């Protein structure tokens, strides 16, 4: 029998700190608090943790975290690159490690002081990866500028408008308005606010951009067998995939035949190939939303609609509760917190436990995606 990850492991604990523009604690303390909260939620003693996974951009390392929380001997640890593209792969790597017997209790985490810390794009002296010479001198300085370029072309090719992007921002904001932990709780958005807000990188305005957040989150992964003894209903990792398409260039994917079909398409093919269900069976989705245009692109990539139909898909309240595909039910990176997409993972778990602040009735399947436009990852969760 071929080895499979399908439902072999489950997320049994989730934890998070407060989300705010500025938190007094260090990233290390925030990480430890989120991880310990996730383990308490699972009912698992920290001494049992033997696997860790996080992002290469994570500043707190497993040595520091393991000794702070009092982990036991650790036999698996991994880091995934490409910023928010790595979020779901942290769960995928731990699922693979646990399913193959390399470890028994895995912790994935992300702790970040993006709200009060430095803006990465301002570090011009050291942050010049290879493509930097081809884009940065011309003033493509920030991720918003790089994605704005693809967004403008997408709007031109497919007739997408700012109203479509507003639909995305609005759906996320509406869910955040129901989530007391969200940074944008009780802060409604109107179409007028959106349309008159300042531009960041035209065609993208302020509300097309994710929040700047201090905060940390973590989750705990164990085998399906062990999961049945934990405190909460297990949320199974049904399928997991990473995606680096042929001739892909990261955020500046400008030099191939089809810049508008990104890593989501690659991850999706593998994700669905391993799954017992398809896009039409997904009850709720948590789609990486550092920028609003990533939603239509991801909707196309993960097969919820055809090429070029992602913008139209957002019409008529499709992304809202009760719509065709409710998304980012905690508020997402646009309105709950921007912690490199980890809050989307935990929100997926809350939905399948039935405890979201914007609960989709009887949700049994959830897609969670990582950053589109960079080498990415995705997971399918089921209850």
């Amino acid at each position, binding site marked *: 029998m071929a080895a499979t990850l399908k439902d072999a492991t489950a997320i049994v604990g989730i934890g998070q700190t407060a989300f705010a523009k500025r938190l007094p604690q260090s990233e290390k303390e925030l990480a430890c608090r989120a991880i310990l909260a996730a383990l308490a939620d699972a009912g698992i003693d920290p001494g049992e943790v033997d696997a860790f996974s996080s992002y290469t951009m994570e500043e707190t390392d497993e040595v520091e975290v393991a000794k702070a929380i009092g982990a036991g001997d650790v036999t698996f640890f991994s880091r995934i690159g490409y910023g928010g593209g790595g979020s779901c792969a942290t769960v995928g790597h731990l699922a693979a490690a646990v399913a193959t017997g390399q470890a028994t209790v895995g912790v994935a985490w992300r702790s970040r002081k993006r709200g009060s810390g430095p*803006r990465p794009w*301002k570090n*011009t*002296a050291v942050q*010049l990866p*290879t*493509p*930097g*010479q*081809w*884009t*940065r*001198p*011309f*003033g*493509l*300085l*920030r991720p*918003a*500028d790089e994605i*704005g*370029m*693809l967004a*403008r*072309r997408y709007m*031109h090719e497919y007739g997408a408008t700012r109203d479509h992007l507003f639909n995305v921002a609005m759906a996320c904001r509406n869910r955040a308005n129901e989530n007391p932990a969200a940074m944008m709780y009780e802060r409604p958005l109107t179409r007028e606010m959106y349309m008159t807000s*300042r*531009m*960041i*990188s*035209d*065609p*993208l305005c302020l509300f097309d951009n994710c929040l700047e957040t201090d905060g940390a989150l973590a989750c705990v992964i164990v085998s399906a067998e062990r999961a049945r003894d934990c405190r909460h209903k297990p949320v199974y990792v049904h399928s997991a995939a990473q995606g680096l398409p042929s*001739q892909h*260039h990261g955020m*500046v994917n*400008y*030099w*191939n*035949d089809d*810049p508008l079909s990104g890593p989501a398409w690659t991850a999706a093919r593998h994700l669905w190939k391993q799954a017992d269900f398809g896009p039409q069976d997904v009850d709720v989705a948590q789609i990486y939303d550092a920028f609003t245009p990533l939603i239509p692109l991801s909707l196309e990539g993960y097969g919820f609609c055809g090429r070029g139909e992602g913008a139209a898909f957002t019409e008529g309240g499709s992304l809202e509760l009760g719509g065709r595909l409710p998304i980012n039910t905690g508020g997402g990176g646009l309105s709950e917190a921007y912690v490199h997409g980890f809050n989307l993972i935990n929100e997926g778990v809350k939905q399948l436990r039935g405890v979201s602040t914007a609960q989709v009735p009887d949700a049994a399947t959830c897609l969670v995606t990582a950053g589109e436009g960079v080498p990415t990852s995705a997971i399918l969760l089921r209850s």
Partner: protein
Amino acid sequence: MTTAPDKSPAPAAPDTSAASADALLVPVPDEDGAPFWEYAARGELRVQACTACGRLRFPPRPCCPHCRSFDSEWRRMSGRGRIWSYVRPHPPLLPAYAAQAPYNVILVELADAPHIRLAGNLVACADAPLDSVDTTRLRIGARVHVAFTETGGMTVPRWILEKP
């Protein structure tokens, strides 16, 4: 072997630590990209091509993704292309860019290689500022041609509308 210009001193690596806050960023070439900037300094727009199969590739890299040959040359482009997309960045930006904001950044689809879209700026003339073309002239599909200007000791391409 890579055919580089006859005189191929690697461009002096710009001292980014000393780059003053009010200067535009200069390209920091890597080994593969250096010939592009050396040719730019001579007013030539060249793209790396595989000597074995002839395919163009960008950004430059050690071997050909189509035939895996390590032999390459730098093929001169006509310097003509069309705007594939553009953005207009607004602050917060690095100071030198904020001073010209909102400016334009365009992607130019090269007439000789449509899958290669060079980032650059649409300007009124080679040495004009990044905000020197009226916004109403920015249009996807507009035909442009290359010009070169010097900034911070490096020569970089700029783009000018065919029909000003």
